[in-house]
């Protein structure tokens, strides 16, 4: 995936930039952890890391789907609304048991994803505006389904999903790890993964090569929405309540940031799964660090903005090299 940098005149600078582009997010995580080791009391504690990992799970799962979409040179703004829809359906079907309720929630997400995919792949609407429409309408629909009310979920199965742990590792983290592995395999080891990257690299060339471009795009949006629905289920399980008005609010921004900081270019043609995980963790650690040092929310938002800009500026060179 990584091509040799072309600038031969100033090799040292090009190499440094290349290393930053490839490993920047990991370097940033290490630096941040080292800083916390020395300057933040109680940061290096099992409990703290467990909290951090549990908190990062919804963003991480949404970001996995977002990485696939961005890999095809698309964008999905509707993920937060899909989380809300998934959350709003759980109280409706929880009477049939945990498994049917969760499956229906994910199915509803996949249907929304299919709607996105049909608009984008078959009709040719731009991803940003198609998913914008679904984002606005989807959250409204979720609120209508829930009668604009918060509904507490008391089913022990659902609560276990959010709170129980195996050998000290919370269920939600295990699910996230399994999904990361699944998406990594999908991208790197399957034909579908190669096709997805080819479509993102050049849609025209993929069409000429005879790839089923429309089907690939459709499936990518279904996957992204399905993953978002899983995040919605986990978020609901953790809260013990279905809160369609707030769940997943602005998560599309965090997910896009995690993907981009992780080294997946917005121009498509590459998907960095591990980078996305690292990007989500970096954002989580940054906000945790700022909170533990009592930095007001205002400044942590500004810090996040600066980090996005720096990360994208560093990534920028890659596009011209490719």
């Amino acid at each position: 995936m990584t091509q040799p940098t072309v600038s031969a005149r100033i090799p040292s600078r090009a190499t440094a930039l290349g290393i930053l582009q490839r490993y920047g997010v990991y370097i940033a995580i290490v630096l941040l952890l080292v800083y916390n080791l020395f300057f933040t009391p109680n940061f290096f504690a099992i409990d703290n890391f467990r909290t951090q990992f549990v908190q990062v799970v919804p963003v991480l799962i949404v970001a996995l789907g977002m990485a696939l979409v961005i890999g095809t040179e698309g964008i999905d703004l509707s993920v937060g609304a899909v989380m809300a829809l998934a959350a709003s359906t759980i109280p409706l079907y929880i009477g049939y048991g945990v498994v049917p309720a969760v499956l229906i929630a994910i199915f509803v997400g996949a249907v929304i994803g299919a709607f996105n995919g049909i608009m984008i792949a078959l009709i040719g609407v731009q991803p940003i505006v198609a998913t914008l429409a679904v984002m606005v309408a989807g959250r409204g629909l979720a609120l209508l389904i829930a009668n604009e009310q918060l509904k507490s979920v008391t089913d022990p199965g659902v609560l276990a999903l959010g709170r129980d742990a195996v050998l000290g590792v919370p269920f939600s983290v295990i699910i996230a790890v399994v999904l990361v592995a699944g998406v990594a395999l999908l991208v790197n080891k399957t034909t579908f993964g190669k096709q997805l990257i080819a479509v993102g690299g050049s849609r025209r060339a993929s069409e000429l090569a005879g790839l089923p471009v429309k089907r690939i795009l459709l499936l990518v949006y279904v996957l992204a929405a399905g993953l978002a629905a899983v995040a919605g289920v986990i978020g609901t399980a953790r809260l013990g309540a279905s809160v369609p008005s707030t769940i997943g609010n602005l998560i599309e921004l965090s997910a896009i940031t995690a993907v981009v900081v992780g080294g997946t270019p917005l121009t498509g043609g590459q998907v960095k799964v591990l980078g996305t995980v690292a990007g989500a963790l970096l954002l989580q650690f940054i906000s945790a660090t700022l909170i533990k040092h009592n930095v007001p929310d205002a400044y942590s938002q500004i810090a996040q903005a600066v980090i996005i800009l720096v990360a994208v500026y560093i990534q920028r060179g890659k596009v011209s090299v490719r």
Partner: protein
Amino acid sequence: MTTTVDTVPNRTEDNRASRERIASALQSYGAAIVLGLLVIVGSIAFPTFASAGNFANIATQSSFLLIVAAGMTFVILTGGIDLSVGSVFALGGVLAAYGSTFGLAGALLLPLAVCGAIGALQGFLIAYGKMAPFIVTLAGLLGVRGLVLATTSGGSTTPLVTDEGVIALGQDSMFGIHWPVVIAVAIIVVGTLLLARTSGGLSILAVGGSESAATLMGLPVARVKFGVYVISGLCAGLAGALNAAYSSSGVPTVGVGLELNAISAVVIGGTLLVGGRGNLIGTVAGVLLLSVIQNLINQVGSLSSSVQAVVSGGFLAVVVIIQTVLSRTQRL
């Protein structure tokens, strides 16, 4: 607009040309036609809808979004996008409230200067730093909202507008029309003239149509792109300042999601997101359409804001699908 060759037009080419003309007209005036139909249906269905007072009300409530959407139109015409306008709108309001201690000039100049500078910073990164507009203005959305919180002690204080002159700017009217509406209309008129009659306006359309072609023609592409983000920042800041004057306070939480409404209005108004094609009159129709839908839903009374979100989102989806199909017809 037609791509047919004008030598010996045969029957099929005639058909195609007329079909293209209809598609093009629908794309440009579709929003206005739907708006007209909605107003007629609304007037028949709800006697309270078709009153001068209600129309004036719709106009006032639309004026703030219209100013923001006007700036957004310029950005989208170049093929860009500005996600930061909601946050800049809030910052403009807060700064206007602080600035109002120095009278009307302070209430306008402070937000315009700061919001213009924010637009300039984003424009610089996009035009000269060659970064993607989506991501730069996404950072702007977060960072500027952070600035709003930082200037209002975490959003817990709401600075009040005390100056009589500033409040008059927001609440007084001329011949029954509120000043924000007058200002919004003036911006649309000036903007339309700018786009149609000046070299700068034509450069904006050219850059959006094809950036590489515009570069080859020797147009100052970077300067044009820089300029539209400054315009968008100024518009969002001005709208925020007027909104603060109207509500006589700079509320730090306003404008969340405003960028989505502005983008929807611009797209519904027939401006293509890929750039190069569209106009401000369409944006006016798009903004009014969103406001009228909201007003009609309020007229029904029993319907909630969730229904409104579903209707607006569904409407946007239908419009973009029709537009995509129409522009495909034109490309044939």
